[in-house]
């Protein structure tokens, strides 16, 4: 079995050393996206996507011609004013691109809805502070139930698509945070299970070659420890363990529960919304293709 996709910096030396891997290359500047994609494609690795956390609003970015054909995960702090963004909408729609916005900013929740309604795929991220859970619930309901065509808003779409009751659904992969799907490499090729761990110097291997295959990875103590961490919530009778929304959260926000007290109601509501969406779809009300 192949290893998960490797998220690595745009470091030619590192990419040359890797062979037959699927890579998600991380760049600091939007201007470097096309070059990074070319770098991977000219190696004997396969390009998953280019990840860029831009520091400017989406509306301020130059959506360059050389982004054509490059899968891009574009993180931005905010969308910017719609009047500035409007000219870019057709281009955003044409690109193979997903926009990442932090859910803890109310204007980002609005932007996610606007982008989706205009056919631009996007994703809410939960790395920062507590979102406005009521507004997020409204956005999630829009994302999953609105019968008018719109682009997917992850992680809601991912969760709804993958949730198979009674089993739980992991959704870290929507933002490269599931080590079963993505491993993170630094310039030296050291391997971590998460970007945050990589930045903190917590690595599981000095080189990806040290991990022979998927079985090797699955049984790796660090990955096992992550599973144990989840069981520990039960061991401690943590509020997450008795949350009705556990199946679509799995304690993802357990560490920030004090600052995110609305998450239980949100994820519980999400389960009901997913049920409703399935009913909707079972009545042959598949959304039609986005227009205009």
């Amino acid at each position: 079995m192949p290893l998960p996709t490797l998220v690595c910096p745009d470091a030619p030396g590192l990419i040359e050393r890797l062979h037959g891997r699927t890579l998600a290359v991380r760049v600091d500047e939007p201007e470097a996206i096309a070059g990074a994609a070319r770098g991977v494609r000219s190696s004997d690795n396969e390009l998953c996507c280019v990840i860029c956390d831009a520091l400017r609003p989406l509306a301020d970015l130059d959506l360059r011609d050389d982004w054509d054909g490059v899968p891009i995960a574009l993180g931005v702090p905010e969308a910017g004013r719609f009047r500035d963004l409007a000219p870019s909408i057709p281009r955003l729609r044409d690109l193979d691109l997903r926009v990442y916005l932090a859910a803890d900013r109310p204007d980002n929740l609005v932007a996610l809805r606007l982008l989706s309604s205009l056919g631009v795929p996007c994703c809410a991220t939960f790395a920062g502070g507590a979102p406005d859970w009521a507004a997020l619930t409204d956005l999630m309901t829009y994302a999953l139930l609105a019968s008018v065509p719109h682009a997917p808003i992850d992680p809601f779409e991912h969760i709804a698509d993958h949730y198979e009751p009674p089993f739980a659904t992991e959704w870290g992969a929507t933002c490269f945070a599931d080590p079963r799907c993505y491993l993170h490499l630094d310039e030296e090729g050291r391997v971590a299970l998460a970007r945050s761990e990589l930045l903190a110097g917590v690595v599981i291997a000095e080189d990806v070659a040290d991990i022979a295959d998927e079985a090797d990875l699955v049984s790796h103590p660090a990955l096992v420890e992550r599973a144990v961490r989840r069981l520990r919530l039960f061991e401690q009778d943590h509020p997450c363990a008795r949350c009705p929304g556990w199946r679509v959260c799995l304690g993802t926000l357990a560490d920030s529960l004090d600052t995110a007290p609305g998450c239980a109601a949100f994820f519980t509501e999400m389960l009901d919304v997913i049920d409703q969406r399935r009913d909707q779809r079972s009545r042959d009300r598949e959304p039609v293709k986005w227009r205009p």
Partner: protein
Amino acid sequence: MANLLLTNRCLRACPYCFAGRELEPGGRGTSVSWEDAVYVADFLFRSGEDRLALLGGEPMLHPEFVDLLLYFRARGLHLTVFTSGMGPAATLRALEAHLPAFDGDTLQFVCNLNDPEQTPPARGEPARVHRFLTAFGPWVMPAFTIYRPDFRLEFLFDLIGQHGLTRHLRLGVAHPVPGAPSRHVSPAQYREIAGRLCSYRPLFERFRVKPGFDCGFPMCQFTDAQLGWLQRLCGEAARFECGAAIDIAPDMSLYHCFPLSRFQRRSLYEFDTLADVNRFYDRLRDDLHAELPGIFEECDDCIQRREGSCAGGGACHLMSRMIGEASVRLPEIDRALADVGVPGRARTD
């Protein structure tokens, strides 16, 4: 077409305003949220409708007016903005900058203009309107509300020529607001108004301006000769309608039109499509007409009304007449009246 009130804030205080309590002349007012704007766009898409009118108050007072305009356009909607022309300078500048985004007939302004002598403007108003008309003249259809029989239209022909406005004049009459005082045109004044309008025939013809009627004009108040002239001038028969405007307030509540905003008020969220909304308000109008066919006694036997070429005047007049009368109406009407607190009417279940 539906009308979305972007804000209920207005800078003017027109003597004939029949938006009544829907507007908040001073104050901050209520504005449409982005979430609801998306919902309205979705609702129209679901309805197969590609036109949307943006109203106020003064819609340009919405803090993100230009952004909303661009958003609705990006959703493929053809937009008509009903304005007083009194937008904030920054909004007008932004609007000008983004005008190229609107090609063809995808954006039109209907600017309601008051005769500066008969309806004296507030301080600063003429300059602001002038600035608007100068910038957007070719996109602007002039509109005028008749609220007195001695109205004057000369200033409009001046503005049309001066700013290159579209040569179509939208004419409305001031309607009563049932149950509330408002300055309006009574049915007895319509014939005089028709005559005065036709007295402007030379100007209409010289400037090649076509008049069009907003709802509520009764056909019978024009002579055959006047109707013939209107048809020759416009190239089509004039319409004498009273249909549901379908106004969507900033809080997503819904009503038939401004004058009837207190009657059968609903929420947009109660309906799946615009057709459903239209059917609902058609029923209200049908109920009224079942009781009172039109604003004149003659409406009872009028063939034009029966054949649909004239609505028999505005439904708001009918509702106005019913208020205060004995409770002998259809239960539906009594309930509608009771809902807005008219005494002696049966309550809704």
